[in-house]
């Protein structure tokens, strides 16, 4: 090999590196495409809340005494909260653990892709699937189970920030928990078990007025309980407040807890996120 065969590289290296925002958009499109091609993922994170809404809201449909709502109506905001957590926490927790185990993350780290673009891509995926999931559940809730859409703008505003804060907090927790499983195979159980337990103690499957206080207090440490409560406040009539632990919707406290989880979750991610597992260096 003579030196004359070496290409003039000065020009080739002068090109500009593509920006994180644009790459984030491309990654988002790719993430969404990948998500919907993985049938088991779609069933697991996307179809579960819809199926559960249908089951629970059809089995339990009696009027709840003194609350002015039916059991079916209670299940609609509960499953919406569960769907938000499923498309963020569960989806990211499992998929990032798998990508780490299968060395997709290491491969990305070996390219000039800015790390921000990866996370932007995940945000787009979570937003897209979260909005779609919520829309499907809301459509089912209003058409089949007699939930009324809020008529005043204030409630829609509440819905907006509850959705955004809840989705963000759960997504950050999902990214954080993705570092826990040691392999792709164990990812589902490591992520799904705590999620399942949380759903029981946060009032998703079982109405908050029938859960023991100590369990509710445990659930209150995590975002899902507050997400459920906030969505009930948005989509149920005020008469249903009597079922709440505090006897009110507590929007202020919900905002505080969810925002605190966003900050705490971000800190947790920054501290624990790894592009490689230990074996990969």
């Amino acid at each position, binding site marked *: *090999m*003579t*030196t004359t*065969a*070496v*290409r003039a*590289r*000065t020009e*080739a*290296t*002068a*090109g*500009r*590196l*593509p920006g994180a925002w644009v*790459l984030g958009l*491309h990654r988002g499109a*790719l993430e969404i*495409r*990948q998500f919907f*091609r*993985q049938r088991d993922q779609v069933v697991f994170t996307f179809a579960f809340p819809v199926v559960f809404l249908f089951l629970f809201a059809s089995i339990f449909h009696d009027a709840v005494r003194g609350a002015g709502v039916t059991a079916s109506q209670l299940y609609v905001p509960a499953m919406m909260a569960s769907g938000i957590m499923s498309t963020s926490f569960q989806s990211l927790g499992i998929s990032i653990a798998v*990508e780490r185990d*299968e*060395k*997709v993350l*290491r*491969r990305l*780290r*070996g*390219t*000039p*892709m*800015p790390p921000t673009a990866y996370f932007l891509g995940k945000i787009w995926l979570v937003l897209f699937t979260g909005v779609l999931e919520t829309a499907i559940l809301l459509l089912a809730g209003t058409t089949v189970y007699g939930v009324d859409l809020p008529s005043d703008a204030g409630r829609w505003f509440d819905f907006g920030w509850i959705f955004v804060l809840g989705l963000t907090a759960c997504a950050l927790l999902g990214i954080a928990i993705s570092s826990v499983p040691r392999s792709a195979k164990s990812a589902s159980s490591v992520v799904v078990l705590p999620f399942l337990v949380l759903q029981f103690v946060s009032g998703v499957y079982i109405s908050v007025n029938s859960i023991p206080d100590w369990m509710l207090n445990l659930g209150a440490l995590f975002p899902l309980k507050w997400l459920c409560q906030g969505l009930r406040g948005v989509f149920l009539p005020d008469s249903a407040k009597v079922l709440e632990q505090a006897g009110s919707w507590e929007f202020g406290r919900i905002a505080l807890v969810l925002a605190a989880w966003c900050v705490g979750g971000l800190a947790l991610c920054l501290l624990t996120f790894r592009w*490689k597992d230990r074996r*990969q*260096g």
Partner: protein
Amino acid sequence: MTTDANGLAVDVRGLRKQYGDVTAVDGIDLEIRRGEVFGLLGPNGAGKTTTVEILQGNRDRDGGEVSVLGADPASATRAWRSKVGIVWQDESAPAELTVRETVRHFARYYPRPRDPEQVIGLVGLGAKADSRIKGLSGGQRRRLDVALGVIGDPELLLLDEPTTGFDPAARRRFWELIRTLADEGTTILLTTHYLEEAEELADRLAVVAKGRVVAEGTAAALRDRFGSEAIVEWTEADGRPRRERTGTPTRTVTELAGRFDEIPGLRISRPTLEDVYLRLTGQENAR
């Protein structure tokens, strides 16, 4: 030529890496010139992969100076990463995407990528461009990995045992690809434990064993330096095969010619690179 003054793409001095009590790399020096194909040869566990991972910027080192394209890989920038192509020992592409989608997407990460279609053709995946990655064979996945390694048009390509698990025909095709890239001026560092591969591709090679470089040079120079003796083989009159290692094979043959009319089963051979390699890496008894 851009970053460095001395014309070296890779300059490593006294590289060291420990894993607990095990010393994986024990003072390796390497100099790889720009435009060169350099082979890092050694048995499993010799420290090849660790060395390459440090050069990639994917592993910390415990000691030594490392300069890759004029920069320390431990503090790799995006600009630096865009000039270094990596092909890992094990494949790692997203299974649900097609070959074309993946190559096109990775091209976006680089300031001046190669044409994705051309790269897909270069690695011989043209017919599989629209197949999902999960449906590819092992050899096809390795070729996709190579495609992703070269899509950014790197100045330096680091290949860690790229042909492990290839069938002979796929290996030949892969060699062609490496030659094409080398002819275009890409500097290539390739680790392998296939002698034939190193001899076929590398301008120069270094033999590593137990974390150290035990020999370095062109394949021919290594053979001459470490294997100047010839082996003369023949069959005795009583049918016993004989084998003699000698520095003066002509004399041996002349002497034999006096005893036989036609020397039965005569064979004179120089040690192969493999013989030299096995002796250098202390695996001589493996034969």
